[in-house]
C-alpha cells in the first residue's frame, strides 16, 4: 500500500491521486467491515461452520489486495479513530456499527488493534477470530495475547499494544467523555431555553438559530463518540422546565436513530434540529396548563391540540428559511399524526407523513410516557412502554422505524431497574448494540440488599465452565413503585 504520509501530506493532488486515495479509503472501510463481520460470525458459529469459513476467506482476499506492497497491515483504534496502518479511515455512517464494534472489542482486549502479516493463512484467522470473541478469554493486553497466540501457533497475527492500557487512564477518558456528553446535553438544554423562552420576546432570532444548530452538531458528535452517555442523560428527571428537557431528549433519540439509519451528517443535523423544536408550539400554551398536575380535561386537550399548527407557524416566523427550518416546520406540524393518517391536527389536504416526523413522533411518545408528564401523570414502566409502542405499530408508528428505535434504547433501556437471577438489583447504564437483551448494568445491591460499589458489568459475561451466562435478567423493576429516582444514580455516576 502507498504510504499514507505521502498521500495526505499536503501535496497538490492530481485527479488520479485523489481517486487512489478514495479507493484506498473504500478498501480500508471494506476491510474493517469484513473484520467486524468475521468477529460477529465467530461469536455465533463454530469455527468449522461454512458461513464462518466463507467470511474469513473474504477477509483474506481483501487482506491480500490491501497488502499489495506491504508486508503487514494493521487496524488500530487511536483516540476513537480507526487507522489502517497510518492512514485514518473516514468512517461513513453506514460503517458506524462495524467501527464501534471493533473499537469496543479492542478495548475489551486491552489492545490498540490487530496486525496481519501478508503471510496470514486461513487456519490462523479461524483460530484467532474464534479466540478473540470468547467471553471467557481471561488474557488481556497485547503482550499476553501475543504470547497466547504463539502458543496456539498463530504466528502471523499480532496485537498492537494500547497506548492507554493504564486502567486509571481509561477511567479518566471515560470520565472526560461523560463530562463532555453532559456539557453538550446541558448546552442544548440551555439553547432550547433561550430560543423557546426568547421567542415571545422576539430576541436575537438569527443568533439563536446558529446556536441551536451548534447544539445539534454537538449532540451528533457526542452520540457518534459514545451513544450511551447521551442516552443516559435522557433519563434525568425533575428538571424544572419539562418541555425543554423533553425537547433535548427527543433530539438525542432521533439523532441516535438517524445515525443507525445511516443518514448523512447534513440530514442528521436537520433531524436533530427538527426534533429539538418539535414542541415549539407549546410556547403558546399557558404554562399553568403545561404544568397542570391533574389529568387534562377536554378543554385542556383542545388547547394542547393547537400546538402543532402554531409550532409550524411560529418556526416559520422565528428562524431564517432554510432546510433546517423547513424540516422543523413539518415535524412540528406532524409529530402528533399517526402513520395511518389519523391523529391531530386535521387539515383539509391529506399529507403523507414525512420520514423525520415518523422518527420524532416515536421518540416524542417514548420520552413523554417514560417521563409521565403529558399522556399520563405517572411514568409508565419501560417494558410497558415498548409493548404499547409495538402494539400501536400498525396504527401510530412506522413498525420498521420502531424496530430500529428499540434496538437503540434496548429491551431494557438505560435507566431501567433490573432484578437479576443472581438476586442482585441492577441499573441499566448502557444498551449493548450486539445483544439488546443483555445491556451493561451497574449493580445497586447484592442478594441481601446490601448496597454494592461495583463497577459496570456486562450481562454478556459468559461462564464457559458451566456453559451459561453469569447473570440473567429476571424482570424489570418499576422504580416508581419503590420511590426510587434513577436520576440520582445517573448524576452520581
Amino acid at each position: 500500500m502507498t504510504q499514507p504520509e505521502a498521500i495526505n501530506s499536503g501535496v497538490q493532488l492530481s485527479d488520479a491521486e485523489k481517486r487512489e486515495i478514495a479507493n484506498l479509503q473504500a478498501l480500508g472501510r471494506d476491510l474493517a467491515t469484513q473484520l467486524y463481520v468475521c468477529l460477529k460470525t465467530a461469536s455465533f458459529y463454530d469455527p468449522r461452520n461454512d458461513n464462518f469459513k466463507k467470511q474469513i476467506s473474504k477477509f483474506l482476499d481483501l487482506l491480500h489486495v490491501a497488502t499489495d506492497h506491504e508486508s503487514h497491515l494493521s487496524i488500530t483504534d487511536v483516540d476513537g479513530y480507526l487507522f489502517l496502518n497510518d492512514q485514518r479511515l473516514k468512517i461513513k455512517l453506514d460503517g458506524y456499527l462495524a467501527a464501534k464494534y471493533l473499537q469496543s472489542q479492542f478495548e475489551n482486549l486491552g489492545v490498540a488493534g490487530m496486525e496481519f502479516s501478508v503471510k496470514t493463512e486461513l487456519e490462523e484467522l479461524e483460530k484467532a477470530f474464534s479466540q478473540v470473541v470468547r467471553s471467557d478469554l481471561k488474557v488481556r493486553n497485547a503482550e499476553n495475547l501475543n504470547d497466547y497466540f504463539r502458543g496456539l501457533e498463530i504466528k502471523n497475527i499480532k496485537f498492537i499494544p494500547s497506548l492507554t492500557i493504564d486502567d486509571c487512564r481509561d477511567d479518566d477518558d471515560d470520565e472526560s467523555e461523560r463530562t463532555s456528553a453532559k456539557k453538550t446535553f446541558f448546552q442544548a438544554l440551555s439553547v432550547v431555553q433561550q430560543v423557546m423562552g426568547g421567542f415571545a420576546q422576539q430576541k436575537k432570532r438569527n443568533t439563536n438559530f446558529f446556536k441551536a444548530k451548534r447544539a445539534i452538531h454537538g449532540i451528533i458528535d457526542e452520540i457518534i463518540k459514545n451513544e450511551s452517555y447521551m442516552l443516559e442523560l435522557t433519563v434525568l428527571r425533575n428538571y424544572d422546565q419539562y418541555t425543554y428537557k423533553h425537547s433535548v431528549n427527543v433530539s438525542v433519540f432521533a439523532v441516535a436513530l438517524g445515525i443507525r439509519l445511516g443518514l448523512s451528517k447534513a440530514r442528521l443535523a436537520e433531524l436533530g434540529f427538527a426534533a429539538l423544536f418539535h414542541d415549539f408550539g407549546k410556547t403558546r400554551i399557558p404554562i399553568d396548563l403545561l404544568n397542570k398536575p391533574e389529568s387534562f380535561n377536554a378543554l385542556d386537550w383542545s388547547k394542547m391540540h393547537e400546538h402543532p399548527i402554531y409550532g409550524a407557524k411560529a418556526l416559520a416566523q422565528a428562524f431564517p428559511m432554510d432546510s433546517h427550518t423547513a424540516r422543523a416546520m413539518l415535524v412540528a406540524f406532524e409529530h402528533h399524526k399517526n402513520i395511518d393518517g389519523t391523529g391531530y391536527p386535521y387539515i383539509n389536504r391529506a399529507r403523507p407523513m414525512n420520514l423525520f416526523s415518523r422518527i420524532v413522533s416515536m421518540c416524542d411518545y417514548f420520552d413523554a410516557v417514560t417521563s409521565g408528564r403529558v399522556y399520563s401523570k405517572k411514568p409508565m414502566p419501560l417494558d410497558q412502554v415498548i409493548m404499547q409502542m409495538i402494539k400501536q405499530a400498525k396504527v401510530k408508528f412506522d413498525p420498521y422505524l420502531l424496530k430500529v428505535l428499540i434496538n437503540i434504547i434496548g429491551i431494557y433501556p438505560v435507566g431501567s431497574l433490573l432484578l437479576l437471577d443472581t438476586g442482585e438489583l441492577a441499573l441499566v447504564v448502557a444498551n449493548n448494540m450486539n445483544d439488546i437483551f443483555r445491556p451493561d448494568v451497574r449493580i445497586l445491591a447484592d442478594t441481601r440488599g446490601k448496597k454494592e460499589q461495583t463497577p459496570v458489568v456486562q450481562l454478556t459475561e459468559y461462564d464457559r465452565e458451566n456453559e451459561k451466562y453469569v447473570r440473567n435478567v429476571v424482570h424489570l423493576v418499576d422504580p416508581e413503585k419503590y420511590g426510587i429516582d434513577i436520576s440520582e444514580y445517573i448524576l452520581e455516576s
Partner: protein
Amino acid sequence: MQTDTKVIEEQAEREIYEGLSDFLNVFSKGIKTSLIYPPDNPIPREFKKSCWNKLHQHIQEFGLIEFEVHASSFMLNGETIHESRTREGNLPHVLHRDGIRRLMFKETITQIEWEQFFDDILTVMRAGEDYEDLVNLFWQRDFGSIDYDVVEDFSLAEIEDGFSAPEQQEVEYSEIILSESQVETKNALDALLDGSEKELAGLSEDDDFLGIFRNIQEFGPSEKAYLEDLMAADGELIIEFESIELLLDILLSEDELGNFDESLLTLDNMFDKMLDSEQFPLLVYLIQGMKKCYAELQKKSGPRADKFKDSLARVGDRIRISRITNLLNSSEWQDFDGIRLYLEELEWKSMPSLIWMLGELNNFPARKMVIEALINKGRDRIEIIGNAIHDSRWYVVRNAVLILGEIGDNKGLSYMRKALEHFDERVRWEAVVAVEKLASKSDLKILIPYLKDESERIRHKVIEMFSQNRYDPAFEAIQEIVKSSQFNGMGFEEQKNLLKALAFTGGDNALPVLKKIVKKRSFFSARASQKKKEAAVLAISLIETEDAWKLIEEAANKKKGPLANLAQLILDKKGRVAADRNTEGD
C-alpha cells in the same frame, strides 16, 4: 556556544513568524479580492491556489500552523503575526465573532480541505453575520486536518441548578429484592417478542405485523429495503417546497378568521425572510402556491379571499420591488434567472412598481430584464406602460416607449405623439423606432413634422421610413425641404436620402424638382453640385416610369462625363439603350 545556539533558535523562530505572517497576508488579500468577484470567476480560484501554495510551502518547511484568533489580529506566542485595520474583509474579525479563538492547520491538510475552508469564509463574508455561522459551516465540512477552538457563552452550573434534587427516601433494597423475587418471571413483553403468548400481550391472533418484532435484533432484506426506500424517498424531497405547501394548506384549513390572519402574517413574514436571503426559486414557488391558494379561497365566501388578495398584491408592491432593486444595484452578479422568474410571476398590478424600478436600476442587464418582464405583462395593460410617458425621468420614458414598441400593439401609438414631442432626443429617437413597429402606413403621418427634427439621425430615420413605405402623404413636406435653401446646407447623405424619399413618395410628381437639380448649372462647389446631380439621377431611376427613363436617357446622351456615365450604367443595368449616346442635351 550557547549564545550561538540561541541566536540560531531565535532566527529560526523569526523565520516561522515571518513565513506565517506572509501566508496570512496573502490569505487576507485573497479573501478581500475574491469578495469583489462572482464565485465562478477564475480570479478567486487563482487566489485560492496561490494561498494554498504559501500554506503548503510553510507547512513543508516548518510543520503544522497554529495561532490564536483575536478581534482584529492573529497572534502567535503573544506576538501579532497579522492585523486587519479595515472593517472590510477583516479576516480575524470574521473568525472571532463566531467564537473561534484558535486555528490549526495540520501537516496532513489537503488542497481540497483548504479550498473548502477558504470558500466557507467567503460564504460568511458574502452573506453577512445574520445568515451564516462559520462554526456550523466548518462542522458540516468535517475537516480532518483543520482544527479550531470555539468559546461558548453557556454556564453548566446554571443548567445543573435547574435539576431539583428529589426528596429521596431511604431505599430498602432487600425489601425490593424480596418483593420482586415473588413476581411472575415471564412478562408480557417477553411473550410479545418471542411470539409465544399473544394473548398475554393483549393482541389477537390476527396481528401478523408482530413478525417484524419477533427477530428484534436482525433486519431482513425486505426490512432493510423498506428503510432504504423510505430514506431515498425523503432524499428526493425539496423540503423547503414542502414547508411552503404545508403553510398554504394550513392557511386554507383555518376556520377561525383570527387564525387565518395569523397564518397570512406568517406567510408574509416567511416571504420577507426569503427575500432578505435572496432565495428566488423558493419565492417563485411560494408565489405560484399563493396563486393556487387564492383560486381556492375565491370559491369560498367571506373576507378570506380579499385578505389573501392583498397579500398576493404585496409580492410586487413598491416595498418589495425596492428591495430587489437595491439587490440588483448592489452587485452585477446577482441571480438574474431567479429574479427574472420572480418578476414573471408578478401580477399586472405590480407594473407601476416595475416601471419605477426601471428608473432606479443602474445597470443595463438588470434594466433589460425588467423591460422583458414588462413587455410580457404589458400586453393587456398598455395604458399602464403608456402612463410612464409622463414620467419626469427621460430614461423611464424612453424605456416605456421601447416596451410599447416591443409589445407592438397599435393602441400604443397614442402615447407616441407625446413621446415624439419629448425634449430629449433619445426619447424621440426611441419613439420613431417604436412608431415603425406600431403604426400602420396611414399612421405614419405623425412622423412628418420630424422630417425637420433637430436630430439628424431622427430625420434620417423618418426619411428612411417614408421611403420604405412609399408614403406619398409625406411628398409635399419632403419636396418643400428639397426646394428650400436649407437643403443645400445639408450633408450629402441626407440630401441623397431626401431625394430618394422624394422619388419614392412622389413618383412622377417628383420629376420636375429632380430634373431641375440634374440640369442646374453651378459655378461654385462644382464637386458638391456634381454629387447632388448624381443623387438626383439615382432618385429618378427609382421612379421607373417612362418619363423618368426618358430623363435618364437624356442624361446618358449628354457629353461624356460622370453624370452621363452613371446614367448609362443605370440604363445598362436595366437593359435599356440610350436613344442617341452622342446627342447634346439642352
